[in-house]
């Protein structure tokens, strides 16, 4: 009798007892929104690309939401300047590179997609977006940078030499010999600083609202 009752209860309880929130706004950034489904998808794709199990804790969601907010601010800027979207062949090329680096073959790749709950279309859209984002940051924040001799010398003395000496006791290359590497590093740092300043300024100007129900 008890057994029957448990089985019957089990059958009944297989159906949900009440309605569930399937999706909602997590953050609004001006007239753009980031939904709970956006955050989950971003976490799954990040986990997939990093080869790690995605974590959906409230902290992880909040952290990913922060990154998506920054991307939303950049998307707004991109749309204003009508920045072009990458071609399908650029996306395919990047996907092929990911497959080659992370997976032993197509079967492993497809199994990972299923395991992480991502479709190939979703993955490609994310890759396309990331390519567009990187190109835009490079275009918007790098060209205006001018490196003076003083910048180069400062970086060589304060960053490059100490790093070299920490790694090896071999005599360090001269400033001229390491110019290309230093320029690349300094440019990257300056671009990053410029991007951070722009993001800080944009965050202050934009109306960003976090809906805490999405992070419970």
């Amino acid at each position, binding site marked *: 009798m*008890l*057994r029957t009752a*448990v089985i019957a*209860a*089990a059958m009944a*309880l*297989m*159906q*949900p*007892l*009440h*309605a*569930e*929130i*399937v*999706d*909602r*706004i997590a953050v*609004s950034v001006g*007239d753009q*929104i980031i*939904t709970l*489904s*956006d955050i989950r998808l971003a976490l799954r794709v990040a986990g997939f690309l990093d080869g790690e199990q995605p974590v959906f804790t409230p902290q992880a969601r909040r952290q990913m939401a922060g990154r998506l907010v920054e991307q939303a601010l950049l998307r707004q800027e991109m749309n204003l300047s009508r920045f072009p979207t990458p071609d399908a062949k650029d996306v395919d090329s990047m996907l092929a590179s990911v497959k080659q680096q992370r997976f032993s073959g197509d079967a492993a790749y497809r199994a990972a997609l299923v395991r992480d*709950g991502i479709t190939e279309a979703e993955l490609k859209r994310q890759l396309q977006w990331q390519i567009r984002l990187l190109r835009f940051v490079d275009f918007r924040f790098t060209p205006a940078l001018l490196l003076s001799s003083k910048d180069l010398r400062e970086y060589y003395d304060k960053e490059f030499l100490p790093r070299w000496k920490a790694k090896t006791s071999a005599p360090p290359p001269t400033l001229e010999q390491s110019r290309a590497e230093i320029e690349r590093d300094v440019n990257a740092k300056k671009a990053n600083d410029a991007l951070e300043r722009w993001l800080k300024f944009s965050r202050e100007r934009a109306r960003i*609202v976090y*809906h805490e*129900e999405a992070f419970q």
Partner: protein
Amino acid sequence: MWKVAIWSWPTYLALLLLLFTACRSAGAAGDYEGKKILSVELAPQPGGQAPLPADLPLKAGTPYSAANVRAAIERLFVTGRFSDVAIDAESRDDGVAIRILTTANLFIGRVAVFGVAHAPNPGQLENATKMDPGTLYDREKVSAAITNIEAVLRENGFYLATVTPELEHIPAYAEVNVTFYVQPGPRARYSTPVFTGNLQKDPQKLINATHWKRWLFFRGFKPVTQARTQNGLVRIRNLYHKDQRLMARVTLGKMQYHPQPNTLTVTVDADAGPKVDLQVEGAQISRGKLRDLVPVYEEQSVDNDLLYEGERNIVQYLQSQGYFDARADYERKPEDPAAAAKAARLEITYTVDRGERSRLVAVNIDGNRYFDTRTIRERMFLLPAGFLSYRNGRFSEQYLDRDKEAILNLYRANGFRDAKVISTIDPDYGGKPGRVGVTVRIEEGPQWFVGNLDLSGVSPGNRAAVAALLRSTEGQPYSDLNMATDQENVLNYYYDNGYPSAQFETTVLNAAEPHQVNIRYTVKEGSRQFVRQVIVGGLRYTDRDLVAERISLAPGDPLSRSAMVDSQRRLYDLGIFAKVSTAIQNPDGVESSKYVLFQLEEARRWVFNYGIGAEIARIGGGGTTDLTQPAGGTGFSPRGSFGVTRYNLFGIGHSVGLQTQISTILKRGVITYQAPQFEGNNNVNLLFSALFDDSKNVRTFSSRREEGSVQLGQRLSKANSLQYRLTYRRVSVDKNTLNITPQLIPLLSQPVRIGLVSTTFIQDRRDDPIDSTHGIYNTVDLSLANRALASQSSFLRILAKNSTYYRVGGAVIARSLTFGSINNLGHRDIPLPERFFSGGGSSQRGFADNQAGPRDLVTGFPLGGKALLLHQFEYRFPLIGGNTRGVLFHDMGNVFTDLGSLSMRVRQKDLSDFDYMEHAVGFGIRYRTPIGPVRLDLAYSINPPSFVGFKGTRDQLLFCGGPNPPAGVECSGVYNVRQQLSHFQFHFSLGQTF
């Protein structure tokens, strides 16, 4: 049949846990993917709710998709109606039920600030809130608004003010009305300001310049206001500029408030900068002209751009004087701007080489076939030398460039895409040195035409209307101007018909045929918006229907901004609202229908006005017992006026008012009842008036008038209007003041009842009714008094006026012709007060007030007439600065006995003849004030009338004419005293003559 093992309790527990875990994950979105959506409902909102967008991706009967759920959330969010959107799903047997949970946005309705009437005014405080009606409401905006209000209050000396917000929620419209109540507290006063920096002046002089100290014998400082503080800084700056320190910098530093004495210490940072010495070498240019040419004075700054502009202006000025080869260069010492700012003196020298003086004797145009030379010359600044003006001609390189550009634009606007304009300058025109000739050669090239005009993107419903707006048409000359006009007209059409995001693109391609272009207009209409509802707020006394009749938008209408502006104008025209704001609620939200807001601020309903003034002239002053001066004497008549008006009577926009005026020659009271926009018609107004008038402004008599009238005004167009009037009046003349032949006194002193029906046509095309410089003004008034209207006198009166104004350079030529005629239709003579009287500052200036026309043959006092003809001519020219103008005038005209007596004679036949044309010339001064020009005219009458008058007392007048004058009344030498009106008259008044 399968046998199941007996489960232990841990097994039961595990199973149950497993089942609950399964249940928790059963709600994940993936479980619903592909299932049929059974229903989609929006969870109820307080008050009304916006309908779901028609293009929402979630629809009953379609398969569930997580992507569509996300898209639906986004679609709802962009409507702007919701700050939060969540979708919940409930699995049912055969599908899934969807519920949309939202948090509605609220929008700002009306914003008002009460508590401070002046400095700052409520409008300034409302602007400071930065809360615009129709935009999104949130609590942070209220806090920010309070901060901003407090900042404005502090700038105006209110450091102890408190601001309390009050919110009124209107859920039906998702609206919040916000009212801020201000308790201002006492206003702070200035204390002695502190000056820092390189002052180069005595601080006491700077303090005096601020005007922050109280005047004359009052001690202490004035109350703080923002305007006073800013004006103080401006005055300090002006003080430095008077000292040629054009680079002086004066800025506001710290503002230190002291609560106990409630005072404010202002710190002013001043840097006097160097003295700027501006000189010109090589040409004589007056200081005043130099100030006009070199913009460092106007801009109150010195930089290279301004100095270079000064250089160009000096060259152009010299060229306009005939020095066509003039060159100029400037030099500044010290050159370095940083060094200049620190130096004691900055010297700027313009070195000018004028070259030889020439005359522009010829401007030739050739090569033109499509346009005649006259059409081209009309567009040119270049002018050959003339006799009266431009003695050396008008020429400069800039003018020549401008003329070439204007000619080129003319040709391009008519399809000549390849037109060229080339100029050559001959410095020795006709072989004579110093005589310059300019030849403008036009190469027209072929005229291009529109081959094919393609209009795409226009929906069928709009096609006919849009096509009718196009100026570019197939087969007509091609024109950039027409294309630009087409774009403007088409976009305005779309904006007025509910398409706020319409776009218009033009593509022009050469056609296969030679000299033809194909034009393609591509229109992107965008989504259409409609009016959801019109929300009117702010009404306390005004009837809602009165407002609703004047709003030309209704639910379902396309959202038209021009209709909103038109409605706003009609509401302002009622004259009962101080402010009419209109806005769209949720303007950036993507939704097809919108609330349109009208926020109204009712004006004060009671308005009082008062004034004092005076008239100084050779005034009438009727009712005089002095019969020896029929022409009157120089008089001074002080006057006072008082009025009260009640607006928005009964809340229907009507008004009632009382205006009174009292002076030594006039007592008047008028009660009016006005109904503007009568019966909702924008162009019709109704006026009732009752008047009491006791005037002595005609020396012949004093009269009393009681009058009632009703007038209907109709505006036919912007310039033309008609008035229809029914008037009843009773006029009585005080027989004891009638200075005429005693035999006529009983007749003319009878009170007369007049019933008049009249109509007036007014055409006003002047640029400025108070001080016209251009345009035309015509009026025709036709009045009929008849027994059928219970009038005791029957006559037909016409009075017509035509005035025209022409600008000539900086001067104005103004002229006016007035004609009037009264035709007696009855047996009784026209009553004295109904006759034409003329003369004075606003009519024939050769006469004193009301002194023109026929005169009594015994006393010599004016009797008025039944015909009037007057022509006035004025040449109005600048005299001193921008506010004082001079006038040369000629007035000719008179009042005549009747129409048949009109005459252009300039001499009287005899002393009993007054039907001739009197001429007067004169000079006047006009000083411009905000309420019109103050006017002083001095006229010289060339042919004033001579007449016989009476030199005696009233008793002598009354009794000496009879057979047996009473004893003691001396009658000799009192009659037939020859007199003449003075040649000189002066008039002082307000407003132009005409």
